[in-house]
């Protein structure tokens, strides 16, 4: 027992029962169902009862176990009588007994009556013992009742296990930036381009991409305040192709009115600045 509850024996005393209950006087094999009329019922009887027994199966198991009976060979008449005594008592003190207890009472009565029916000898083998289903349920419940007790005895955090912890330096949780692959980026572009139906106009080619890039780079070097010598934007080391790209970029910038071009006189140096 997990020791969660008051000993069922307490309740037993309360009910005037003893472990020797089966040895009490019987009439025609049926025990005298006598209750002490003046039995004192403590006000917290409901809690005691409900906490002591998890349900009809638990109560039955208790009745069986305290008499050292084998669950496989339940004296159904005697157990039913004892069970009913508890149920009657609970009714007497007007506890709102869970419906499951009453259902079990009916089940027990049914088994009892089937046990009394004479069975043909030949049929006895095939016909299942009327108690079989109850026995199965009792065992099934009992194994999990024990499993629950086992679980309770496992070491657990807070009671037996103390995880070790140490404060860490006070650091802001660094935020990791999302990863983006080129694939993601291109897929996004393909989508938006398809939507914008831009594939139909082939006006953006690889060539213009490098021009576009150069436009950005050129704009970065320009300011609205100072003029820059056009020639300084052309890097001879880039070779012919590089110069052409730069030149196209500048033309495009002029076309888009992004830069201002100034030439004092023909053949004089050309100066550029960003449009203010």
């Amino acid at each position, binding site marked *: 027992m997990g020791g969660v*509850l008051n000993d069922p024996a307490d309740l037993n005393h309360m009910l005037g029962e003893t472990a020797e209950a089966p040895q009490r006087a019987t009439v025609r094999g049926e025990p005298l169902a006598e209750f002490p009329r003046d039995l004192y019922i403590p006000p917290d009887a409901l809690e005691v009862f409900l906490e002591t027994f998890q*349900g009809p*199966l638990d109560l039955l198991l208790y009745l069986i176990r305290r008499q050292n009976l084998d669950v*496989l060979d339940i004296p159904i008449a005697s157990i039913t009588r004892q069970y009913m005594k508890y149920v009657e008592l609970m009714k007497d003190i007007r506890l709102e007994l869970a419906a499951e207890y009453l259902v079990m009472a009916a089940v027990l009565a049914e088994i009892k009556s089937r046990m009394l029916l004479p069975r043909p000898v030949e049929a006895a083998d095939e016909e299942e013992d009327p108690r079989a289903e109850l026995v199965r349920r009792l065992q099934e419940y009992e*194994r999990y009742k024990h499993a629950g007790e086992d*679980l309770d005895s*496992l070491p657990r955090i807070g009671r*037996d296990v103390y*995880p070790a912890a140490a*404060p860490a330096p006070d650091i802001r949780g660094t935020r990791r930036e999302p990863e983006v692959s080129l694939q993601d980026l291109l897929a996004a572009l393909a989508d938006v381009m398809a939507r914008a139906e831009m594939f139909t106009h082939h006006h953006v080619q690889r060539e213009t991409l490098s021009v576009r890039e150069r436009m950005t780079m050129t704009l970065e070097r320009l300011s609205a305040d100072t003029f820059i010598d056009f020639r300084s934007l052309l890097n001879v080391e880039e070779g012919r192709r590089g110069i052409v790209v730069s030149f196209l970029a500048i033309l495009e910038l002029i076309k888009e009115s992004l830069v201002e071009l100034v030439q004092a006189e023909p053949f004089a140096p050309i100066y550029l600045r960003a449009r203010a």
Partner: protein
Amino acid sequence: MGMQTLNDTSRAPLKHILEAALLAAGGALSLDHMQTLFESEAAPDKPALREALAALAQDYQGRGIEVVEVGSGWRIQVRDAMAPWVSRLWEERPGRYSRALLETLAIIAYRQPVTRGEIEEIRGVSISTSIMRTLQERGWIRSVGHRDVPGRPAMFGTTRSFLDHFNLKSLDQLPSLAELRHLDDIHPELDLKFPEETAGEDAERRDADGHRQTEH
């Protein structure tokens, strides 16, 4: 991310990094989680992590703490032998769990996936909603799907946190369930059975075993 370039395990031994991380976490860390503490190219592989954890466990020999593996990974915890002192840190005794809660949790642990209706059938009483809620709030059980029957009731199973809480590495480590016996078993001396019958019983017993395995 400038500081991360310092992830230099040549200066800090791996076992000491793991010790610091486990203590900072204050609970179990999986090997996968441990790997994320490193720059991807510097992340130790799992054998290396296991080796470092073993070395740490070795260092802790004869000390008041130990490295253990539980459901969701590895953690550092206080040794049993220290309980007399450590348990006095808190004035309040840890609460007890009700039988209803323990039995419900046991049924879920051993019979998962299992519906609330099935639990009620085994216990023979209805299960209060608060018990199911408590178990879920503690993160010990979770809904793992729905049974394909009318009403499509949720099926429940236990979590890694459940294993962590009860100091278990896997469900295998739960104590085994009591075996079910059959009515015929009570008078063995009278049961001069035919081979077919015994075979049938064996099969049933194997069934029960097979059942256990699906539970794990």
